[in-house]
């Protein structure tokens, strides 16, 4: 890990906390609005987990903001008694970026769906992650468009029969974790609506992370895609399929006689093999989310496929990199500080090339070369002369 001199390191640094000796409860984070998801929707469980977890942060409620897009899941902010914005389809990461950059004293969360984040909002999502804005993004993946009543989404499997794909989807899906790793997100995790303990554990790490934390949450939509994650929820099935990612430990699937482990095979690829077949201990990979090189995390994210035979869950990657909002603020603060008392808006308006018209002698002009010079090039002054070209005016 690199050491950040002068910059905050925890996700919630700079956000005011509740007075010492006091604490908030789940009830404090519950708004007076009636929750309107379908009975049995996985969103309820996530809401309960988040409401239950937020008091643990010890932050002032008024300094927490949830920004969402559009979709069933994006109704989330209405049910939390914090500040919130239910914005437009796909754009929440952009809005949250502006808010988080303008206000370092806020803990900013994004709630989005698989369609919201990966289809219409794909561009904003990847750019938020590459910039590493200090946001926690909860991506509710139900592999379907819920709110619009059941069309396939960018995470639906090939062959998925939905309202808009009666003959089966031919669209190759995104793996959100792979995508996030490809975009160089600094924190990437996967968890599940129904596993409250795991979800809370991931939320805790995500909130503590300074930078963009992408949390994919598998979420069941009982109405339009029921049972999409059943293989991971059924106790026995889950045991045989889920690979819990734990820092410093080998990546294991199953237990007892069926125990398997992830190894790097002779071609350099990752493979899941029965523990008994491991010939060389060196082959067994040890999970290291803090590895600056994302390639092993990426390879792990490729272990799962539509069959869900092997499903890594947990934190894939957790590395430190300067955040966009901290860096933007630091540049401004530093410039303001350097200018100190000397900064004057009047001088800025005058610019560096002024002349004075004196009323007593009409037409009399006196030229001065004073005032403030801008830091960068001015609009009209191109750079022709012996050095460069001046007219750079493309589309």
């Amino acid at each position, binding site marked *: 890990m690199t050491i950040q001199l002068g910059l905050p390191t925890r996700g919630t640094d700079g956000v*005011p906390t509740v007075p010492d000796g006091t604490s908030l409860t789940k009830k404090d984070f519950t708004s007076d*609005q009636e929750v309107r998801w379908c009975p049995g929707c996985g969103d309820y469980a996530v809401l309960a987990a988040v409401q239950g977890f937020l008091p643990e942060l010890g932050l002032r*409620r008024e300094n927490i903001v949830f920004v969402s897009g559009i979709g069933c899941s994006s109704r989330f902010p*209405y049910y939390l*008694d914090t*500040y*919130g*914005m*239910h914005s*437009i389809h796909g*754009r929440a990461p*952009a*809005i*949250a*970026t*502006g*808010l988080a*950059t*303008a*206000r370092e004293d*806020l803990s900013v969360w994004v709630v989005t769906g698989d369609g919201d984040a990966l289809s219409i909002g794909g561009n*904003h999502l990847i*750019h938020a992650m590459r910039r590493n804005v200090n946001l926690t993004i909860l991506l509710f993946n139900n592999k379907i468009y819920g709110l619009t009543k059941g069309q396939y989404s960018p995470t639906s499997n090939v062959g998925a029969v939905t309202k808009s794909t009666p003959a089966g989807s031919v669209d190759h899906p995104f793996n959100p974790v792979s995508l996030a790793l490809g975009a160089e997100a600094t924190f990437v995790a996967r968890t599940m609506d129904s596993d409250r303990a795991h979800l809370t554990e991931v939320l805790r790490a995500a909130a503590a992370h300074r930078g963009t934390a992408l949390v994919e949450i598998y979420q069941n939509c009982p109405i339009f895609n029921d049972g999409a994650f059943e293989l991971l929820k059924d106790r026995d099935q889950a045991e045989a399929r889920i690979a819990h990612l734990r820092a410093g430990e080998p990546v294991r699937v199953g237990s007892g006689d069926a125990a398997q482990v992830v190894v790097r095979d002779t071609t350099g690829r990752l493979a899941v093999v029965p523990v008994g077949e491991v010939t060389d201990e060196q082959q067994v990979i040890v999970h290291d989310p803090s590895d600056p090189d994302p390639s092993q995390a990426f390879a792990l994210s490729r272990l799962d496929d539509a069959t869900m035979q092997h499903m890594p869950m947990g934190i894939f990657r957790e590395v430190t990199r300067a955040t966009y909002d901290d860096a933007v603020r630091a*540049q401004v603060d530093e410039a*303001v500080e*350097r*200018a100190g008392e000397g*900064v004057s*808006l*009047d001088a*800025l*308006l*005058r610019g560096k*090339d*002024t*002349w*004075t018209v*004196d009323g007593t002698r009409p*037409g*009399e*002009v006196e*030229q001065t*070369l004073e005032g403030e010079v*801008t*830091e*960068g090039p001015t*609009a*009209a*002054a*191109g750079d*022709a*002369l*012996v*050095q460069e*070209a*001046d*007219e750079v*005016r*493309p*589309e």
Partner: protein
Amino acid sequence: MADMSTTPLTQLDRVVIRFAGDSGDGMQLTGDRFTSDTASLGNDLSTLPNFPAEIRAPQGTLPGVSSFQVHFADHDIATPGDAPDVLVAMNPAALKANLGDLPRGATLIVNSDEFGKRNLAKVGYTSNPLEDGSLVEAGYQLHALPLTSMTVEALAPFESLTRKEKERAKNMLALGLLSWLYSRDTAGTEAFLRAKFGAAPQILEANLTALRAGHAYGETTEGFAVRYQVAPAPMPPGTYRTITGNQALALGLVAAAERAGLHLVLGSYPITPASDILHQLSALKRHGVTTLQAEDEIAAIGMALGASFGGALGVTTTSGPGLALKSETIGLAVSTELPLVIVDIQRGGPSTGLPTKTEQSDLLQAMYGRNGESPVPVVAAKSPTDCFDAAIEAARIATAFRTPVILLSDGYLGNGSEPWSVPTVADLPDLRVSFASEANDLDGEGRPVFHPFKRDPDTLARPWAVPGTPGLEHRIGGIEKADVTGHISYDPANHDRMVRLRQAKVDRVAATIPPLEVDDPSGEARVLVLGWGSTYGPIAAATRLVRATGGHVARAHLRHLNPFPADLGEVLRRYDRVVLPEMNLGQLAMLLRARYLVDVQSHTAVRGLPFTAAELAQVIHEHLLALAPEEVSV
């Protein structure tokens, strides 16, 4: 530079010079420097840069021609001038592309070095116009000078520079010569060069040498029978500078934020001709300005809106194609009732259109380019310096009424420049805003409660309650909200009420704007010329021309396009005829006809260039003639 000339001086009241050359010849810089030196002499002036969309079109071709026109005078002027009195042409392409705009008798200063066979052929000249007598025959005063070789010769002592490098300083030689011819002092340019090339002494000296060589050539040559002087224009006392529209707009935003006590946050995505504002503001961090270059225009406005939600003055800058992408988020800002300034530096459309040319064709997009009933105040700047005031006005409306405001400028204003009487910050409007800090209502049981959509009775603005304020936690968004409480509401009557409230709020802006100023000096006019945006200069110049020939014509210009000033209908009905020139196909005319049932007469052109004063004067004359044939002498 000491003045050693013996050439006789002639006094002129106004001059229009156009510098034209290849994109790489540095004509924008040359024009810019000439403008600065002219400004410091106290002339009134107005400029029009005109450049190709390509960074470097093939050298020596017509598409690669870039030009800069400057009009300066000993009196108040309104436009960059219809036709150049002097054309400086650095190559055959520049000559060919601009000759058509030159009236008989105009002066031509041409770089003869570039008139070789190949360059002539590139633009279709079969014989050399500098030598075949055609230009002189056509009545031009031709000065064919080997500017390139003169420059190379003057720079002979600079052994470390290559010939190519030396050649590139020819624009400075031309500038020196023109400065001599029009009696401009080059001290400002010398200071500019020193500041710019202080770190490269060779290059600095080379440029200064070329500049001085041009001036010295003028002094010693007998090629020019006279040189000219244009006296300073009487201007109100004050401190002046020249400024482009985009610079003024950027400064207006900074000043507005300061006067509002808000942090300025710009979200922007580069696009011609708006990018300069992003560049300007990015260089003003020491004034506390935050600029975010987003991944696209949608993100740019999203970032600005997010910042506004957080209590900043959120601003986004773009041109027409970008405004199209921002529509949905503008709708969100209408619904959430947050302040936001959206700046559109219009260019030729549709689609990519003419990126570097000017047009006023986004008015209807600004007014109506959104789904639903989505009223947005629209203000327009009328001149380069007015971009400063227009930015402050847009910010005033946005913050006072908690609404997105669209500010329309265009490529002509953005890149054009003129002298600006620099205001004092303390004299600018006070835009202070107050954030909500406590409960503003009582709930059913009489307990204090915060209602995010309880409105100010005067402005109908809702409270601006920013995150971090204890007790005011609330949720906003694009789904229809219940009046007062702000809860989600699908109630039909509530929606009808909210649609009307949002419209009424925007309508109330009219109560805060001054009555329309009508310029009707004789009081006898029957024709009113109405304009908006950058047609201000050409209309002002045209009405002057008409009045100078005894015609009576009134003139008014709209700053506010939505809502209109309260007395607009009354003003329109006062005249027998309303003439409305627009650089579109009649967008404002359509709005006025619909709103006031007045038979507005459109005059439209979409050539990518501003109207000329002569063209508009002709149009006005025709209308005067149509109304009263016997009274008008054309």
